[in-house]
């Protein structure tokens, strides 16, 4: 202790004393933060409102289930597109999620070497790739070789978009799990893979699911890679080897048509896409019981869930 009392007094005198001004600054900072939040919400909110306002009138039972009618007639629906979007998201997830999760585990748990550093670097580069490039790649290696448009090619292209996102978020979530849990597992005489899969992953589950849902939402709205791979169709799914429809493709086509009734259907399809994505998010979160305790509680109170 070398600080003398005089010196301490001197130091204290250096502190800012203008309480009023500081309270004011505090308030201003609050207001600025709030203002920026509003600025961020306005475009987001107005898109939602616009889509809802325009799209809701188009939605009917027929619209949701029927195949598209003749161009410009305002008849028919987007049934094949809804079906196609669910199929393509499902297939892409089936390919992209396991690869992404495993890569993430590798990067986090075994990732302290040169190979992993390279994988991490290319993964990050890959994540920023324009999706149309991945579409062209799928076109070249699958569509051209097979000689026809294919659902697999679409799923492949979307999986390529998906797995770097899943890998990165998985890695980050696993790294957040404190080393003390791994130590506790090690001290219990557990093998490393048991610790990783039974202890670390269960602690990181929330973050991993968020990452997967982020990737699902991202591919749900992708249009460009689908043009190159599944092309679009007005028929329900019949085979993996023929073109298939998807909501983003349908929205894109409808919005380009010069007829007001078609554009209205485009709005409707956009609204449906939003609901599909929200629906997948809520369903997955509910299933894994994380983040949305409120929904779980509501459903429980409604008596839909036992226990």
């Amino acid at each position, binding site marked *: 202790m070398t600080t003398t009392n005089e010196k301490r007094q001197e130091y204290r005198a250096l502190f800012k004393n203008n309480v009023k001004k500081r309270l004011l600054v505090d308030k201003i900072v609050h207001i600025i933060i709030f203002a920026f939040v509003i600025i961020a919400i306005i475009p987001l909110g107005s898109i939602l409102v616009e889509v809802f306002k325009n799209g809701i009138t188009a939605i009917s039972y027929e619209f949701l289930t029927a195949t598209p009618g003749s161009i410009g007639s305002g008849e028919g629906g987007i049934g094949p597109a809804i079906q196609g979007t669910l199929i393509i998201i499902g297939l892409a997830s089936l390919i992209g999620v396991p690869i992404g999760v495993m890569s993430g585990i590798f990067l986090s748990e075994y990732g302290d070497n040169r190979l992993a550093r390279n994988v991490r670097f290319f993964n990050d580069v890959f994540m920023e790739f324009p999706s149309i490039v991945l579409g062209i790649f799928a076109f070249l290696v699958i569509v051209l070789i097979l000689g026809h448009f294919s659902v697999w090619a679409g799923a492949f292209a979307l999986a390529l978009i998906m797995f770097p996102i899943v890998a990165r978020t998985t890695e980050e979530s696993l790294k957040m799990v404190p080393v003390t849990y791994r130590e506790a597992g090690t001290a219990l*005489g557990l093998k490393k893979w048991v610790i990783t899969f039974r202890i670390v992953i269960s602690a990181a589950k929330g973050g991993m699911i968020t990452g997967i849902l982020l990737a699902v939402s991202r591919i749900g709205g992708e249009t460009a890679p689908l043009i190159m791979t599944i092309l679009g169709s007005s028929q329900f799914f019949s085979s993996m080897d023929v073109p298939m429809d998807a909501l983003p493709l349908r929205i894109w086509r409808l919005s380009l048509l010069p007829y007001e009734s078609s554009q209205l259907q485009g709005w409707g399809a956009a609204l449906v896409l939003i609901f599909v994505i929200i629906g997948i998010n809520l369903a997955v979160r509910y299933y894994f019981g994380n983040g949305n305790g409120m929904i779980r509680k509501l459903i429980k109170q409604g008596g839909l869930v036992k226990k």
Partner: protein
Amino acid sequence: MTMSTPEQKITNSTDSQIPDTTSHVEKKFKMIAENVSIYYGDTMGVKNVTMKFPEKSVTALIGPSGCGKTTFLRCLNRMHDMTKNAKVEGKVMIDDINLYDKSIDPIYHRRKVGMVFQKPNPFPTMSIYDNVTAGLKLNGVKDKRILDEIVEDTLKMAYLWDEVKNDLKKSAIELSGGQQQRLCIARALAIQPEVLLMDEPASALDPIATQKIEETITELKKDYTIIIVTHNMQQAVRVSDYTGFMYLGELIEFRETKKLFTDPKNDLTAKYVQGQFG
């Protein structure tokens, strides 16, 4: 008395590395550490420590912060395997098997050695029951009847049973800090170890919880060989039979606890146990 550097005061006599057991019936040694040195990169954290741990007794490791006592404790379970830059030299014998032998699978031997850490670390996504049985279930024990039996036994040994017996399905992180630590003791005991390593198990706890942990240790000593790192000299006096004093990575003195605290042979030990530095 003139001041001298601690280095000058360290004795190299091997007597200091074996507890003075003459006044007791000859005890069997459960674990023996021979010439153990531990490096972190180029830094030497533990310097050539030799210690013999008598069976069914409590050995305390004391010393100021950074003296290497936790580092040493962790090598008794090969926990340094998890740290990339750590390197361990020397031998750690448990029942005549060298834990650092190339042909040894550390996983098998870790099951003989339970460990309790400084901060309570129950698995956050598991219930109390699942935490206790984690080491068993994940090692292949499936029989529900045996699991139930072990849960009750170990929670009783850790003095936690009465507080949680009606809430075994409750999440482990809903327990208080002291309860969590006793849960971790139960979890460590569930794999039926023969040695229990404890790294300052009470440092994050209040006096009442600490007392409970100490009672647990005293009770467990009947069946287990316990090695405990502690910051708290009173705790070492209360719970341990033997105490080793470490300083700057070396073992300075290792004797029966009573003798170490009342009649230390080494000046440095004397100063430390009298609270002249810490």
